[in-house]
């Protein structure tokens, strides 16, 4: 079956409606909310603070530690079992790797920057929404950064390359490929790349270009949200 119209009527290169807000957790050093379609992520940054046990300290630079979690009620099906899973641990790892390249933690040897990401509602693209929120929270916390990171999923649904899959598209007739990406948009470099499902060699490049363009739009939104927090 040809996928010539998206399930929610979007254009193939169009993200779901987005919303970004900086400064949503008063106690945190920095925080942000990012909403894309029905997926809602909140991120908060604590630190730099001393890292214990001391064996985990890096004496040359600060350490970034991310924790991704889906709230128990955040899925539309069964309750998500609380606590870390293999999936959430892997996502925490790739989130760290997605954010680390733009950070400069050289001023914080022996310290840790903690990033906590919570998903309040999920409809696909949760790791990407978490990364987008976390990048804003890190900027809000005043952590030295070379650039922002913006993150979005692309994929192949019914043979078409599409931007920002929702859950229905992710599950589309067993013929769906999901590619989670994150870009440091100033340099155009990829800091997150994970793919599940089949794609032809040539399609991958097209998908990455589409993701990059999508991340540009997200970046604008992130910058506006950060400006909104600090103007006046």
């Amino acid at each position, binding site marked *: 079956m040809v996928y010539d119209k998206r399930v929610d009527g979007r254009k193939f290169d169009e993200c779901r409606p987005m919303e970004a807000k900086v400064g949503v957790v008063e106690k945190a050093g920095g925080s942000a909310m990012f909403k894309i379609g029905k997926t809602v992520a909140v991120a908060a940054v604590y630190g730099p603070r001393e890292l214990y046990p001391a064996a985990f300290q890096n004496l040359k630079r600060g350490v970034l530690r991310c924790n991704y979690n889906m709230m128990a009620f955040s899925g539309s099906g069964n309750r998500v079992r609380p606590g870390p899973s293999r999936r959430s641990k892997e996502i925490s790892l790739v989130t760290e790797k997605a954010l680390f390249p733009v950070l400069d933690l050289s001023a914080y040897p022996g310290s840790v920057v903690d990033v906590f990401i919570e998903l309040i509602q999920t409809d696909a693209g949760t790791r990407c929404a978490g990364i987008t929120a976390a990048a804003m929270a890190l900027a809000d916390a005043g952590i030295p950064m070379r650039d922002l990171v913006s993150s979005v999923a692309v994929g192949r649904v019914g043979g078409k390359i599409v931007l920002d899959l929702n859950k229905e598209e992710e599950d589309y007739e067993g013929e769906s490929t999901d590619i989670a990406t994150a870009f440091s948009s100033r340099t155009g470099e990829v800091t997150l790349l*994970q793919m599940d499902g089949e794609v032809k060699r040539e399609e991958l490049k097209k998908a990455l270009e589409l993701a990059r363009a999508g991340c540009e739009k997200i970046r604008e939104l992130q910058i506006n949200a950060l400006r909104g927090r600090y103007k006046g």
Partner: protein
Amino acid sequence: MGDIIKQHLLNTLSNGLRLDERKFEDFREIFVEYGISSKSAEGSARVKIGRTEVVAGVKLDVAEPYPDNPDEGTIIVNMELLPLSSPAFESGPPSIASIEMSRVVDRVIRESKSLDFKKLCIKKGEFMWTVLIDIYPINNDGNLFDAASLAAIAALKDARFPKLDKDNKVDYNEKTSKKLPLESEALACTVLKIGNYFIVDPSVDEESAADARLTVGVLENGTLCSLQKGEDVALSIDDIDKMVDIAIKKTKDLRRALK
């Protein structure tokens, strides 16, 4: 210490060679042995890539299908980084490295649809086969990702269904000659970026010096079925393009060892 190794490595690479004198896109010798635990496991295999050695075993079990896929069986992949196999691996709960490796190998097989999950259904909504793939390193001399995915596919190729009694209970004492519905053989090939160089089949030292890692799942016809980027440095789209090309090309070396 790490910085010294990295500098030495970069100097060697700038001369077009690696520490063990291989070229950038050379694999070490690859060796696959089938049926290493054929009395116990339904399928098993040993893979050696140079001095790296990995074993994998398949056990089959009957369970109730998941409600969202009532007519499909499933796989569970687990890899444990044994302290027996390397001074760098520690006892205790699964490390994040072992979780990532398990999940990457899982996705290479699952997302390629190498196994026909529909054919693993015994009775819709009631009974399905669960294919449990367990992978252990025996000696880690680098490139566990590729060795693990090769071992998993080899063990799946080797596996035969055990007998089912009339209540759909497994009789492990009796194996049938029926093979698993393995429709294709997806394999992982990992490419590292160190400085401006791309290499395959890394040693442990090369792994510790890597700026970025890309593990690519590749099917027989060159179609990609999974990607996983690792390590701390960003990649350009052009880098990714080159690394994917290398992976597609080099997967053929791994595939040849499957026979």
